């Protein structure tokens, strides 16, 4: 839970200078709106927000929101986001990126950041394709899918990002769909409020390169799901494995665990951004005598 009293923050306070230049109809617009809604609703001021991204269409996100932005390297948003949060816990840190970014190039960071329970929110724009590089198969492309790089059909079994997050030990695991920005916003609010690593996989249609997993495709399949006991790992795991005609969206799992910073002897008590520089003293050299 946030400790500071809520400010009156308007969604328009998050309006960026640069107009989002995604293709008209791109799923990312929904997430942009949803994130702004959530942040405003939570009364978090733009200067206390950092959005960190990788490389991909989705990763252009920080350019389009009025906050602190860090548009880094393909696959590398999470280490950057983790460190920012550690050194200044007052900040609200959101990592955002694509499925290629997060589940190919960045798999390793995804797994370990989740395991560490770093107190950040990670939202993936999962369009099951490489968008920015114009339509190659991605780690979540379905088996058999024809893409630029798989003219005879994709042969890599797709990653199930929720299962990966769960088995890594993520303490907040959710899924949403760009067709319903309000729902994304609701989940995002809870994710930000959650103390620990929150993961939201968003089905985000790429209207230009993915002609299979369209808005229609998902509208026909997704339904909202709410677990009776969000701490029941086995149920979460089973539900997250569901795929096919019916695909659940919602918060699958949530549990309170110490964060990485809670367990660190220094981070748990010091805000490094605000702490004084350590001044070496003669005594510090005594060990060398």
């Amino acid at each position, binding site marked *: 839970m946030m400790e500071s009293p809520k400010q009156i923050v308007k969604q328009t306070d998050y309006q960026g200078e640069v107009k989002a230049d995604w293709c008209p109809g791109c799923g990312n617009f929904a997430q942009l709106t949803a994130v702004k809604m959530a942040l405003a609703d939570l009364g978090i001021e733009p200067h206390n927000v950092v959005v960190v991204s990788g490389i991909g269409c989705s990763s252009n996100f920080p350019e389009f929101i009025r906050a602190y932005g860090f548009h*880094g390297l393909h696959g590398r948003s999470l280490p950057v986001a983790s*460190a920012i949060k550690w050194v200044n816990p007052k900040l609200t840190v959101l990592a955002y990126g694509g499925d290629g970014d997060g589940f190919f190039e960045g798999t390793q960071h995804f797994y370990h950041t989740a395991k560490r329970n770093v107190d950040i929110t990670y939202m993936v724009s999962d369009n099951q394709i490489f968008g920015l590089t114009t339509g190659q198969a991605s780690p979540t492309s379905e088996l058999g899918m024809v893409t630029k790089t798989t003219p005879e059909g994709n042969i890599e079994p797709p990653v199930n990002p929720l299962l990966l997050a769960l088995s890594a030990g993520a303490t907040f695991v959710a899924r949403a769909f760009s067709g319903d920005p309000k729902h994304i916003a609701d989940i995002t609010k809870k994710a930000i409020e959650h103390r620990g690593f929150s993961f939201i996989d968003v089905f985000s249609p790429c209207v230009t390169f993915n002609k299979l997993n369209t808005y229609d495709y998902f509208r026909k399949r997704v339904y909202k799901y709410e677990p009776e006991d969000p701490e029941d790992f086995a149920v979460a795991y089973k539900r997250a494995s569901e795929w096919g005609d019916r695909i659940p969206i919602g918060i699958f799992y949530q549990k309170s665990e110490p964060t990485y910073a809670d367990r660190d002897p220094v981070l748990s008590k010091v805000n490094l951004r605000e702490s004084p520089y350590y001044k070496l003293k003669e005594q510090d050299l005594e060990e060398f005598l």
Partner: protein
Amino acid sequence: MNDREVVIRVSGAAGDGVQSAGQIIAKSFSRKGMNVVTYNYYQDIVRGGTSWYQIRASSDPVRSQGDGLDIVIALNKDGVQRHTNPDIDEGGASPLSKEGIVIFDKSIQGYEEHGQRYVPMPLSDIAMKYSNNALMRNTVAIGAAMASINLDFETLAGVIGDQFGSKGKIADLNVNAAKEGYDYFKKNQEPLKKNLSFGTKPKYLVGGGDAIGLGFVSGGMKFYAGYPMTPASSALMYFANHASKFDIVLKIPEDEISAINMAIGANYAGVRSATGSSGGGFSLMVEAVGLAGMLEVPLVIYEAQRPGPSTGLPTKTEQGDLNLVLGAGQGDFPRIVLAPRNVKECFELGREAMNLAARYQTPVFVMVDLYLSEHYETVDSFDLDFKIDEGKIAGDNQENFRRYEDTEDGISPRAFPGQPGLMHNEDSDEHNEFGQVVSDAVTDPRERVKAMNKRMRKMETYRKNMPPTYTYKFSDAEYAVVQWGSTAGVVEEAVDILRNKGIRVGAIEVTHVFPLNHDIGDLVRGKKKIIVVENNYGGQFDRLLRSELLVRTEPVRKYDGESFYPGQLAEEIEVVIRGGK
């Protein structure tokens, strides 16, 4: 044999405690106010093999592990033979001098003798009195060695006490074992003919990695992210052991890519941070070096070299990563490379790197090698006063804040998350003054040129503020020896040797490796020969020098995994001067 100094070598297999024995000896000397340099010869193996640890201690200043060898403590037969044999080839290390002694357990037999004094002793027998295994024989041998040069036993006992201090009784047992060794030698052997003068003020005995650690902390570093890799780990260990004390954080993440991105994230958020590795691990950081360059996020990178290619010789030394560091990251962007010459300079340049990174908002490398990062030197004092330079930082709440303002010196004001009214985006895509991307809709070749010029201008500003290049015995030199980084000490000693032979040679010592200070061009002008000394095969620094100065240079290189030795180096320089090779 120089009677003002003593060189001791402890030799055994990995796991025999060679290194800790060596450190007890080294500390005994530094406490007696002597000048000490150590050298560590070991393998990439946890048990077995051949390793040795050398301590050179002198009443006069010393700048390298030196030539000469007075005392060998041999923990196995191989050690007895290896170090007494005049045909030894351990990469330039001296065999035991004619007047030297070799101390070993009396059970070792059947070795070849080479005329020095062989001192078989009941090391294990004594050790077994105090312990249920023979490992304590090192301590006994140390006692004997210290007796041979008349170092007072109290000093040694103090060091041993501190070393095993936490273990109370163990410390006493070790002290007693050492005493027996000490007394045994005194009783049965003549001391070495030495004329050592011990001082009264103890000196600091500091490892290169420790000094880097101290320097970074003194320079304001609060966060270090790294993945263990020899020989960069000695600094990492310093942070591990002092994190809580200094309220700093050491993070060891899943890999080096994560480490450097974390360090960048922390710096971006306004906390001085660094990362480090050796060549193999640093290779994985290459992409993110360019990220820091593009975002203009300060970043100090500690690069500790070991011989490549690839895994190479993980426990040996080389200066083979300069090409890698200079080429790290696609495209052109500002970078600064510093290379300390000795332990004390690890401290000084380590903290200077922190300021430079903040001032120029770009990657700053501190390059050492295994030789420097893993050896110990005495240091008389550290200047603990240091002014943290925060660089340009924007005041809160500015309209149309230009994070990448196109200033005259190329340096633009930073702003940190949490500061009101300065929200902006830092982008790895090319961007304009506001940080807005110019690689998409608004592309404009002119914006690109402007952005490149602005960033690169920082290097011009830096060049203007560079300290002059160090020289040694240079004013009347006919021949210039140019070196960079850790070889300075050995080069100076080689220069001394050559000067004693009447050869007018002097040294140029490059600590600020990139960009090169133009004053080097003036220094080498008119020299009869420019001899570039490097601990690598390819002459990586030589290439940089030649491309900048357009002068013919003569190489002296070593790439067998070991450091240069002064005598050996002086010989090779002389060959070049005499036109040979």
